[in-house]
């Protein structure tokens, strides 16, 4: 213990230059700084507390319901847009059927839409079918006729 005391004494007394310098506070502050500091600190705290209070109120009483309503509105409109009935032209419908794999159409709707086109095509190909039936029934080779011609 005595040794430790000696070491401390030694370290405290072995700085002649430092000990020769007068120990004083050479820094200063603006006038009345310490008189007004508590008020400044208080007003700063008041502002911070108010901000926190406002934020708390906003977050719990206004922000949460507002965001909930906004979210529900977005979801509602989004759902409505997805399920809305849109009248498409035949061409648009065809494009949709060809390009979109994941849209399923009822066969009846497709038939109704394409009924006119299918009937017209059937009329066009009716004559050709008769000729082909005649050739088949009489066992005539179509290639032989083409060669003879």
């Amino acid at each position: 213990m005595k040794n430790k005391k000696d070491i401390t004494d030694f370290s405290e007394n072995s700085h002649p230059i430092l000990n020769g310098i007068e120990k004083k506070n050479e820094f200063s502050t603006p006038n009345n700084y310490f008189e007004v500091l508590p008020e400044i600190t208080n007003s700063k705290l008041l502002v911070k507390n108010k901000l926190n209070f406002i934020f708390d109120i906003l977050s719990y009483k206004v922000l949460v319901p507002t965001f909930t309503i906004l979210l529900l509105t977005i979801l509602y409109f989004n759902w409505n847009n997805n399920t809305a009935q849109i009248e498409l032209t035949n061409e648009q419908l065809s494009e949709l059927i060809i390009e979109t794999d994941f849209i399923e159409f009822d066969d009846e709707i497709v038939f109704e839409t394409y009924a006119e086109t299918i009937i017209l095509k059937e009329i066009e190909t009716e004559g050709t079918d008769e000729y082909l039936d005649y050739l088949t029934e009489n066992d005539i080779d179509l290639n032989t006729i083409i060669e003879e011609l």
Partner: protein
Amino acid sequence: MEHYTDNKLLELFEDEKSRNYAFNLIVRKYQERLYWHIRRMVISHEDADDVLQEVFIKTWKNLSKFRNQSKLYTWLYRIATNETITFLNKKRKKFFISLNDVEKELSSKLESDVYYNGDEIQLKLQKAILTLPEKQRLIFNMKYYDELKYEEISEILKTSVGGLKSSYHVATKKIENYLKSN
């Protein structure tokens, strides 16, 4: 009005009705000591003022958690020390400057500071202190200027008393050498 003990102030702070009053008294009681502690580290008055206000805001927020495990003023010193170190680190990062350059910057700030009235030898001493590493500077200031006991510094910096004595001894040696050679 300011003769309340720390325990009495804390008691008043616990009560919602007297909280603001108690805090005001705490600020009045410790503002000067904390200010000079910070000021010696950051040098400029404006910076010290900013840090000190931040210290009091932190104090307000955390005082209810203070459990009397240490003395109130060592707890406040600890907040002030941490805030000062954070401030100096931010400054380094903000201006991309090294440790030594911060000390150089502080040194030049000291010479042009309107709120510094030291004579030539005092200025030389301050410059010598600014050459010390941050922790040694803290220890030197707390021991030499604030005249805190090693045990108190140990509580503030969470460093052993032996380590503090050795750091203080090294710091004073460095200052002596600086003063001799300049």
